């Protein structure tokens, strides 16, 4: 029961984050919303693991955290430097915020 309530709360939050991701307005808002959405998905999975009583699927939640982190970092790298090969010392900043 409590898990169901938690799942619902998380779903509502996801919906809110999703609307922000759709509305923008800047690219950073979108990234922020995507990040938040990812975090909430992780929580949803953790809750669902308990809901369905299969706690071994918590591994997936663990994976989600990682992947989410990496994709957010990758987006930032692209937005900030416009390429994937620099180590970060030089800043070419090809793309301004939208």
């Amino acid at each position: 029961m409590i898990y169901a309530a938690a799942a619902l709360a998380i779903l509502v939050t996801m919906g809110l984050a999703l609307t922000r991701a759709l509305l923008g307005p800047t690219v950073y808002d979108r990234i922020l919303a995507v990040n938040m959405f990812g975090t909430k998905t992780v929580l949803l999975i953790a809750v669902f693991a308990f809901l369905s009583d299969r706690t071994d699927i918590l591994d997936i939640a663990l994976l989600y955290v990682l992947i989410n982190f990496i994709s957010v970092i990758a987006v930032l790298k692209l937005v900030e430097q416009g390429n994937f090969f620099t180590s970060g010392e030089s800043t070419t900043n090809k793309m301004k915020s939208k």
Partner: protein
Amino acid sequence: MMEFILGHYNYWIVIFLMMLGFYTVISRGNMVKKIVGLNIFQVSVFLLYISIGNVSGGTTPIIAEGFTRYSNPLPHVLILTAIVVGVATTALGLALVVRIKEAYGTIEEDEIHDQDQSL
């Protein structure tokens, strides 16, 4: 009737998703977006398979104590393979897009078409 809808709504939404992806592929001119559309199309097909493999009241097919009903593992296996095939296709498609951009200076199909015609 109600029972019929409850038993099939999942397929219908999945079909709707599939068609959104398919539409993106065939209606857009931007090559990256086409590949995104292709991915959506494929992921929706995966959802169709997994829906087929679902058993209500079942659980994920890892044998554990306290569970007797498991969902069908075969569609899961097929989809694992299909996901891999999908990412391989995506990688190749994107590689081609990069090369096309270098050769033509654009990734819009219309402009590429114009350039080829003017040759």
